[in-house]
């Protein structure tokens, strides 16, 4: 039936479809980032094509990666992990698939508008009013679905991952609603304050909380070890709930916004070390005796890599949020490197781990090739380090330029080599993602076709006989 084809009721189908969509959009979004990187080292690469102008590519890259790749993948993982932890089915598989279509429509809209410069001009909140409403409706549907699944759960105790998922699905729709400012007109600096509340909390109350929840799910599952300490995990959860949300103003520390607000932001940024170190202690103690799995088991390797990058991000973040360091490195490519460390290093890796672990379990098929998974890991890992190193060095050169009043046309020549290295790293990362997509395609679609072919052959043989 048509309804069953479009809004499938099959168990796990919503999760699978969300994961596939995430990989699909990641190709476009990461590809745009790579292309923008190429334009940095060769600014005359394209002329007269507004859709390929660097700022338009950047808008689409940021939104495509955040709303497309990471968010859709996260929802796919939540749709798999929540029922598995609650020992029940997803409350409504049809609603899940409906959300999947709505979100894909949203992404088509974002692709068409952002590349043409239809933007609200607010960083991370560029999407226009119609798309904002669509995103909110979709988020409400997802929250409803997950909360109802929890209501119908078969186990009484809520594992810590569920705390994170439920928290995120309460926080993120509200943060999104507050952060868009589509229908309100705030005076300039207030607009900036609310804007950075949103800009930082899309990370803090969505990417981090769901990402850490996935780490809590994957580490015990892939290693077979029980979680080291439930008490520590609760401490980490409440630490993030308390200290993450007020940090936004550290993005505009040298602008004329109130000093008390900056103080709150810097203090809570530094306090973030508490939940982060708690969480990571918990993870690394859980790994005890099972580190060798990093060599043999690919989901474990992705997860542990992601935890390592999480440690790096969250030590670097409070460090550069302090006034003295921020004074020096702000406005430079160092910050771009840091953003990639969080979203590409930590959260893309944990999402890849979740897909590598979850997709075989929701689709009932084994991965087409382990070698391709390894290739994906190596390309992304090495490409990412190259990107981080080149952006950080370029950022330090830039920062020195601003700090010592060197004219921009002198130091801008000095960072040309790093733009070039960044472009190469982008190519490596996108290549890795394409390998991931190819592997997924082969896994999901070719065996079915091969089986069907074999069956047809057998039938033909029967007829002949």
């Amino acid at each position: 039936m048509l309804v069953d084809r479009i809004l499938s009721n099959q168990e796990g189908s919503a999760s699978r479809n969300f994961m596939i969509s995430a990989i699909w959009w990641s190709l476009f979004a990461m590809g745009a980032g790579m292309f923008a990187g190429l334009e940095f080292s060769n600014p005359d690469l394209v002329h007269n094509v507004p859709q390929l102008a660097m700022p338009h590519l950047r808008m689409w890259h940021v939104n495509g990666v955040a709303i497309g790749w990471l968010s859709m993948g996260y929802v796919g993982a939540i749709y798999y992990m929540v029922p598995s932890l609650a020992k029940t089915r997803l409350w409504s598989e049809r609603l899940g698939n409906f959300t999947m279509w709505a979100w894909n429509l949203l992404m088509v809209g974002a692709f068409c508008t952002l590349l043409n410069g239809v933007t609200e001009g607010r960083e991370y909140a560029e999407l226009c009013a119609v798309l904002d409403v669509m995103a909110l409706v979709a988020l409400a549907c997802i929250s409803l679905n997950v909360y109802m699944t929890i209501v119908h759960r078969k186990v009484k105790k809520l594992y810590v991952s569920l705390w994170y998922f439920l928290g995120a699905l309460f926080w993120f729709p509200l943060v999104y609603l507050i952060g868009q400012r589509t229908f309100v007109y705030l005076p300039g600096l207030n607009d900036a304050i609310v804007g950075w509340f949103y800009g930082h909390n899309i990370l803090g109350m969505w990417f981090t909380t769901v990402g850490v929840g996935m780490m809590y799910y994957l580490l015990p599952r892939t290693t077979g070890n029980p979680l080291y300490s439930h008490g520590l995990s609760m401490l980490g959860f409440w630490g993030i709930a308390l200290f993450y949300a007020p940090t936004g103003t550290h993005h505009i520390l040298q602008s004329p916004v109130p000093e008390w607000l900056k103080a709150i932001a810097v203090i809570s940024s530094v306090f973030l070390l508490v939940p982060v170190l708690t969480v990571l202690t918990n993870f690394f103690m859980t790994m005890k005796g099972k580190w060798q799995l990093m060599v043999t088991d690919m989901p474990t390797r992705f997860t542990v890599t992601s935890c390592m990058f999480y440690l790096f991000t969250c030590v670097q973040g409070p460090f550069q949020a302090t006034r003295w360091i921020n004074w020096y490195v702000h406005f430079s490519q160092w910050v771009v490197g840091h953003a990639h460390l969080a979203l590409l290093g930590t959260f893309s890796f944990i999402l890849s781990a979740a897909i590598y672990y979850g997709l075989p379990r929701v689709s009932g098929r084994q991965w087409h090739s382990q070698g391709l998974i390894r290739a994906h890991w190596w390309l992304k890992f090495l490409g990412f380090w190259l990107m981080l190193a080149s952006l950080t060095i370029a950022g330090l050169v830039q920062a020195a330029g601003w700090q010592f009043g060197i004219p921009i046309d002198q130091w801008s020549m000095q960072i040309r080599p790093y733009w070039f290295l960044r472009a190469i790293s982008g190519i490596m990362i996108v290549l890795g993602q394409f390998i991931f997509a190819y592997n997924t395609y082969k896994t999901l679609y070719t065996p079915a076709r091969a089986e069907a072919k074999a069956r047809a052959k057998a039938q033909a043989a029967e007829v002949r006989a």
Partner: protein
Amino acid sequence: MYRAGALGVLITFFLIIWATVLMPMVLFNPKPSGNGNVYSYDEKAHADPARGRRVFVREGCFYCHTQFTRLQDRGYGPLVKAGDYVFETPHQLGTARTGPDLTNEGGKFPSEWQKAHLINPRAVKPGSIMPSFSYLSDKDMNDLVAYIQTLGNGREKKVTAYVEAPEEYKLALATKTVDTNSDAAANAGRGLYIQNCAACHGMEGLGNGPNSISLEKKPANFTRPFYKQYPDDFWFYRITEGVPGTRMPRWGDGATLADPRGGILTPEQRWYLVAYLKTLSKDRDREETVDNLRQLNKVKVEQLPILTKEQWEPPSGGE
């Protein structure tokens, strides 16, 4: 127990929203300082800075250009105050400076320069990595330039004079032995130019000599009309000292003003060159003019023409 947990999440979250989103709106209401940007439409100008701001937003300029000066910044004008931003929505404070800060950009460059810079940044600013915005329509371009020229609302003093040669080069004018306005001197300078300069600046001074291919910052195109405004002492200064930040050599290297006979080129030879270089820049009315930006993109970089249509100066931009 879970009820208490849910209540805790609710309370902490709304406390934080109250403290960092609602309280700033109540407590932080800066009054307009009067130094904010004014985007009024000017009848004479035929351009609308308010619409230009929307073009600025649409083209995503703020991803690379910030709009607030900080205490540690040098050369970007006075520090901003909270009251300067009351009417700036959506805010364009920016996040990274891949290009220069634009807080006080208005009036720093002539509108014509801004326009040429938007069409082909590297033609007027060698080594820049700004993308070309040649796809903007005439109207968009004019409005965007109008917006750029209103930035800063005249907080910084306008640039009214060109860069001048140092004092000692003005004194050198008195000791020059060559009549730099004579054809004979220009002829003598031509030979020197072919020998020493043409490899980079080209036979016709278009800045397209064979060496220019390998140079990251392209050599100057001496046919540009604004070279008409160079005084003799400034030409002499540039030839003697080279151009900082480029590969232009110091042709007076080794010479001092006390003992001027040293150097790669003697002072006399440098004056002959001045006489020749002065003849290269073309008059405005003789230069190719173009009315259509689409045509413009087909013109060679080194012959970037003047835009005649809707020649326009902004309300507070100045020349």
